[in-house]
């Protein structure tokens, strides 16, 4: 058998050093924000832990995917977005759905394939998006949604709306042509879009060394796009880098590539034991767990983090009961909605819990 990858020693060259984003995030996050970030990450993890359990109990059809260890990236980046800024999450970004206000019961119902799940059983696992709340449902082809986010940004520009779009994708997605097309297009047209590259060291089983020779964050310069690398396991650092990218986008400064360095702590899916990752590497990353880190920060500030955890536990338990009570979808409805037969609705507004959003929101998506 091939020995496990030594991910630490094989990493491709990187001129940009791994460091916190410039500027102190504390200037922009009050204590409630910082507590909320913990709450959102705990909710994300609790939803995925519950989903995995349901899968192991045989209650989830198909396959199951989670983003354990990457909660800080999706939560931190989405937390910086305004209500009118849509987000395109990918496979490890349950936190984006949670921040935008997707109901926990709707997500668990999605896993279970129920009529009350976000996609009503038409899709499973992470393939959904509550677009009424500004979350665009992903497709499995990578990184198609980066191009769609670029198009939304183009629409905002043409309509004179002060908004931006954000798309997540992984290190593996940077090898496909759509990555290049989106990077180039967004830079040429200087569009208000934020690209968040979640470098979680692995694309399924393939390590970075077999994915690229030059780190994508360095490639950004070739497109004429600013890029920054942040600690993807520090929710406040990710938030701050995204906050800055968003301001650049809204002020006409064009797109930004953010590389969030993190680690996929589970297999690609629940069926994958990830034996190709050495236990030492996982143990080292376990020490950097993003939730433990934020909890320690808040504890030092006197926040009762156990109380936050208890809140989340109760919320997810209630949502689970709700999801399990949802009926299964009616097979007689499968042909419905293939075509849109009425005036189309457009992407709506999501939650924007950050205290720093004043009256800046454009606020027209309901129109």
């Amino acid at each position, binding site marked *: 058998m091939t020995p496990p990858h030594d991910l630490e020693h094989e990493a491709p060259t990187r001129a940009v050093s791994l460091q916190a984003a410039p500027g102190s995030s504390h200037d922009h996050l009050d204590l409630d924000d910082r507590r909320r970030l913990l709450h959102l990450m705990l909710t994300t993890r609790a939803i995925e832990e519950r989903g995995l359990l349901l899968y192991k109990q045989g209650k989830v059809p198909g396959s199951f995917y989670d983003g354990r260890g990457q909660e800080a990236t999706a939560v931190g980046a989405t937390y910086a977005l305004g209500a009118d800024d849509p987000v395109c999450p990918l496979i490890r970004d349950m936190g984006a759905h949670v921040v935008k206000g997707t109901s926990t019961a709707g997500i668990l119902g999605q896993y279970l394939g129920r009529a009350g799940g976000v996609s009503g059983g038409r899709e499973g696992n992470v393939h959904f998006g509550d677009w009424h709340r500004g979350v665009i449902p992903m497709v499995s082809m990578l990184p198609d949604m980066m191009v769609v986010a670029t198009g939304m940004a183009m*629409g905002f520009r043409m309509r004179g709306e002060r908004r931006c779009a954000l798309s997540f994708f992984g290190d593996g997605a940077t090898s496909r042509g*759509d990555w290049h097309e989106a990077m180039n297009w967004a830079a040429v047209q200087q569009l208000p879009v934020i690209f968040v590259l979640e470098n979680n060291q692995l694309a399924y089983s393939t390590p970075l060394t077999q994915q690229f020779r030059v780190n994508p964050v360095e490639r950004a310069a070739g497109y004429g796009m600013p890029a920054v690398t942040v600690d993807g396991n520090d929710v406040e650092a990710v938030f701050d880098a995204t906050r800055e990218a968003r301001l650049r986008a809204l002020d006409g400064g064009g797109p930004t590539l953010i590389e969030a360095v993190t680690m996929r702590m589970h297999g690609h899916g629940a069926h994958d034991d990830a034996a190709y990752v050495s236990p030492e590497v996982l143990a080292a990353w376990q020490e950097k767990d993003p939730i433990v880190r934020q909890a320690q920060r808040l504890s030092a500030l006197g926040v009762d983090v156990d109380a936050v955890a208890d809140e989340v536990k109760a919320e997810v338990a209630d949502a689970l009961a709700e999801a399990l009570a949802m009926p299964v979808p009616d097979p007689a409805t499968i042909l419905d909605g*293939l075509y849109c037969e009425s005036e189309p609705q457009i992407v709506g507004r999501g939650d924007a819990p950050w205290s720093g959003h004043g009256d800046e929101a454009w606020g027209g998506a309901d129109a």
Partner: protein
Amino acid sequence: MPELTYIEAINEALREEMRRDDRVFLMGEDIGAYGGAFKATQGLIDEFGAERVRDTPIAEAAIIGTAVGSAIVGMRPVCEMQFADFVSCGFDQIVNVAGKLHWRSGLAAPITVRLPAGGGVSGGPFHSQNPEAWFMHAPGLKVVAPSTPADAKGLLLAAIRDPNPVIFIEHKALYRRARGEVPAGDYETPLRARVVREGSDLTVIAYGAMVHTALEATQDLDASVEVVDLRCLAPLDTETVLASVRKCSKVLVVDEANEVGAAGAYVAAVIAERAFDDLDGPVRRVAAAQIPIPFAPQLEAATLPDAGRIREACLDLLEY
């Protein structure tokens, strides 16, 4: 009524709809100052500016994917593939992103993708294809193929206003060769088939440039031949097709596209399945040979259907 060519009708539809609806904008390669490879967008940048007549990088996936993105936030993009053949580079965005979006989430993607398609111009294997069947097979897309200038305008207006992704097949050979009366001002042509010439002995079903070839092939036949122009391939107007077949009891289905898995193959299957009892002969087809479309005029002519082959098939059928 003014007489326009097929491409003038397309240009007029774009111009009028952009005046009418400020959500409508155009994207494609060399469609601005140059006016497009076939000049379909000629002069539009002068009236509407570079923001609404957008020259893009050579990036078909991004042309279609950004169209979807702009559409879901309220725009009505009309994309041009420089040649229909190049749509294969944006196939994934059409099939997986645009086509499935409404069924899986209820979010509509009202985009129009214009494809200059078809052979007969010595374009060779990469500038002659008829890719409509690829998109008929993918759920959630509408596929439209006008044969006349009046339909080119009316169907394009209908396509732009349709809340779904529409693949709009324009036949290159018709751009300047097809000329006809085009109503001035606003009208929509329904996405339904049309009986072009009534008859009672035999139905010939075609679309795009083959409608003209079918009319030419059958005009002097000593029989009453009905010619049906499908106009919309997906969803297919089976009602009009079956009504004509039931009336005439014999049918020939013509495609300019490669014969295997073509639009006409599906039409033939629908007829065989649902009108078998009404038939007095086999469902016959004429289509392009199953090879890439050749360059040399002699080879291309031997590949594509023509009036002679259609006429021969009609004569065979009439003998049943």
